């Protein structure tokens, strides 16, 4: 057997250094990562990277920061199992591995010039924050912007500092809602879908970016369709088990599509007939 080093294998990793870590909630941390040698990640909002925690494994994580920032990028990670828990134990200065970015993100070229309705449910805000920050960076390129954010309770809210800023802006309509009210919560209570009927949108020129756990898609899409948003303008990001990120390992397959390459962002019209999608 002869062993050789592969220069551009699909499984090569780029070295990433953790610049900073911020505890956001009990189970979510925000990691700021810089690639070795000042390399740029060059991602689109909605794309993901494969993150290696050496010895524990490799997992898909959405990029949470705007592509406009080139020096570093953010990953917002929930401690959910083996790799994510190990990642949570790392400290600033520790090294991780990065592959990617992979997949199709939100089609920025198409979104430009239109209104945006961004609906985030729980951890769905992680990939959407990339879009939100990007849109704010290029605010004049977009029309009206609505952001609806729902999560279990106030203790689960991500990016609280930024949300405070978003609320203050007068060029964006932001509303949040929780499933379970706690004494500190003075806002609305219910599912994020219940906010959809109340907002002022022009369905023809509104593109929706919707990300949340699998259970949220059906009811949310139903509401959006009843507001006459065209199916093709509803963009959703699907989660699947992923191992390779390059359309080979088969784990992420949704019928004939590979979530890692054809997605994770899909427009509803293109996948509504797929029985395995929802």
């Amino acid at each position, binding site marked *: 057997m002869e062993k050789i080093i592969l220069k551009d294998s699909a499984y090569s990793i780029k070295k990433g250094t953790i610049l900073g870590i911020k505890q956001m909630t009990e189970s979510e941390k925000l990691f700021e990562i810089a690639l070795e040698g000042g390399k740029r990640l060059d991602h689109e909002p909605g794309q993901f990277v494969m993150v290696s925690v050496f*010895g*524990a494994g490799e997992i898909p994580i959405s990029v949470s920061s705007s592509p406009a920032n080139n020096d570093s990028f953010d990953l917002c990670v929930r401690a959910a199992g*083996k790799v994510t*828990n*190990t990642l949570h134990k790392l400290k600033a200065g520790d090294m991780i591995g990065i592959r990617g970015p992979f997949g199709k993100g939100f089609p920025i070229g198409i979104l430009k010039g239109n209104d945006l309705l961004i609906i985030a449910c729980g951890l769905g805000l992680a990939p959407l924050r990339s879009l939100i920050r990007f849109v704010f960076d290029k605010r004049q390129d977009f029309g009206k912007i609505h952001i609806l954010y729902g999560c279990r309770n106030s203790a689960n809210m991500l990016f609280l500092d930024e949300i405070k800023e978003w609320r203050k802006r007068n060029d964006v309509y932001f509303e949040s809602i929780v499933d379970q009210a706690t004494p500190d919560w003075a806002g609305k209570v219910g599912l994020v879908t219940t906010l959809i009927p109340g907002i002022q949108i022009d369905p023809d020129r509104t593109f929706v970016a919707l990300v949340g756990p699998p259970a949220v898609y059906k009811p949310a899409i139903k509401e959006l369709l009843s507001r006459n948003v065209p199916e093709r303008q509803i963009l959703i990001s699907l989660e699947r088990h992923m191992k390779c990120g390059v359309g080979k390992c088969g784990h992420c397959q949704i019928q004939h599509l590979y979530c890692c390459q054809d997605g994770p962002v899909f427009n509803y019209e293109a996948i509504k007939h797929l029985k395995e999608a929802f």
Partner: protein
Amino acid sequence: MGKPKVAFFDFACCEGCQLQVANMGEILLDILDIVDVVEFREVMSEKWGGELDIAIIEGSITDEHSVERIKEIRKRSGILIAYGSCATIGGVNGMKNNFDLDEIREYVYGSDFHFFPTKKTMAVHQVVKVDYSVIGCPVYIPEFVEVLKAVLQDIPYSVPDYAVCVECKQNENVCMYDKGVGCLGPVTRAGCNSWCVNNGNICYGCRGIVSGPNEKGAHDILSKYNIPLDLIKNKINMYNKCREIDQNAQ
């Protein structure tokens, strides 16, 4: 920080799994390089009795005395590993649960059986919290090494939740069913690299059953191959009897 302190303890079992460790050869030296074994009846006479980083428990819990002893070990151990089928799923000792306890005691101890208290056989996790499990009768040493590394890395180890057939096919064995012999591979959890079949034996199901096994499908196969259902049931019982305690607890 010094090397983690490790001790082996045996309860009701044949100690075959500890022997596996004593016989593991070269890799044992590597392990001794990174941990400090302070108690191990199979190979050393000293007793430590102090705080432990890692306690490795072999055997199942079959009487009141063992219950107290395992609780005491749990208290002074950082990590507790259930080691071998007896400890993790009750194993062969679980067969006792097929019988009325008094009947067994009478059978084993004669008419004085009342002087010999006994309990239904329990796996270790049915008595104290278990952090890691190494299943198998005996344990498969490469898997034990993987568990040990997971302990040292402080990450979970999960036993594959699919059939032994997966590994057996990957090893390109001639299937026992082609030889006309019933094999428990299709319903037994993998992770042993189909060790028994590689060595010409059938899979005896010592690693416990996969989740959601297709019981009807399995019955159909057995009848097609003319394998008496009882034979397989007995084999399953041989290792998996304690599963009922978990199921009743749910």
